[in-house]
């Protein structure tokens, strides 16, 4: 079959689409579990925000840690990033680099070599 050959040619260990379709059924349970986990961790985030960790900065750090975990789950499972092609990762590495640069600009705004 043409399609099949093409995909193998493109990527040595690519899975033909027909095979993937049969695998989808197995993933449905996983998607439901991830959804439940995300909702549970939303409740945990809300709860933790009413716990006093000493300083506001500590509370922000805890909340961002939970949010990053949740975002990671969405990206890895729902967006299939746990098992994606090279090219996508390459695009995202560039993106991560530049978005970190953006946040670094915020840091630079406080950098003052003259008066300090």
């Amino acid at each position, binding site marked *: 079959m043409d*399609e099949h050959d093409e995909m193998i040619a493109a990527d040595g260990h690519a899975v033909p689409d027909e095979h993937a379709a049969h695998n989808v059924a197995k993933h*449905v349970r996983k998607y439901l579990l991830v959804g439940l986990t995300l909702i549970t961790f939303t409740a945990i985030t809300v709860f933790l925000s009413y716990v006093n960790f000493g300083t506001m900065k500590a509370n922000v750090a805890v*909340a961002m840690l939970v949010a990053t975990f949740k975002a990671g789950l969405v990206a890895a499972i729902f967006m299939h990033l746990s098992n994606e*092609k090279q*090219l*996508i990762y390459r695009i995202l590495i560039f993106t991560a680099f530049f978005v970190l640069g953006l946040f670094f600009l915020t840091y630079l705004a406080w950098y003052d070599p003259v008066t300090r």
Partner: protein
Amino acid sequence: MEIPYTVTARPDTGLWNAKVGIWLFLASEVMLFGGLFSAYVFLRLDADPGAWPHGLLNVPVGTMNTAILIASSVTVVLAWAALKMRRYNAYWWYMLVTILCGVIFLVVKLAYEWPQKFEHFGAFIKKDKLEKYEKYLGNHHLAERGLPPRMEISGHLHNHEALHDANVKEYEIALDPVNADPTNPAMDRPHFLYVPATDKIATIEKEDVEYANMFLPKHSAYFASYFTITGLHGAHVLGGVLVFIYMWLPVSKKLYKRNPEHLANRVEVAGLFWHFVDLVWIFVFPLFYLL
């Protein structure tokens, strides 16, 4: 024009074209929201002590909207899985639930949360007049506990003409609980449940006020970033809903009959966008509602 590689992989990328396209688009979206979030970090870290408000948003409603968005992420991925297994009926139902979730999210935001803010009023007191309004601010109590001071008195504005009429010299506010009973330790931290304004009326002279307005974007850096980021996010939800409606209408069934894999790939790509919108909200919710 026939677009190539809609269902088969392009030999050089190893991917069907739309997949590369959506990820490039999402990369630009990361930069768009990244810029706004970095502005948020800057504004917040640079705010004077006590100037960044806490507990102004309705947490149960925000939590519910978060759960709705997560549920819709699950249903859209199930819709895609149903297409992969060639179950169009299941796909149709999952898609309908996804669309409804998106609509509910938007209705809650636009018909309830935002208008409630527009009707709320806050006045920042001048630094040298804070003592005069101590009974509403409770700053001695806060200082004893090592907490940041309060500079704002908020609640429901009774005399709306005060906003425009220079002859009106004072604001009459039905106080929020935090200003009605500022030394109550229960007010030191935000409440989980929404607490409406009390019956207690305070009169604040305009000349003691640094700045006062309804809770509009121009009210403060907090509301400016809140409305900008949730507004842009809401626009994304609306865009996603419109695309999903198109994919749910009978016109898409024609594509399904002709080439089911093509429709599945379209749904996957729209789903990737939807998950990204969900992912942004996962950060918006704690940053604006909880912290």
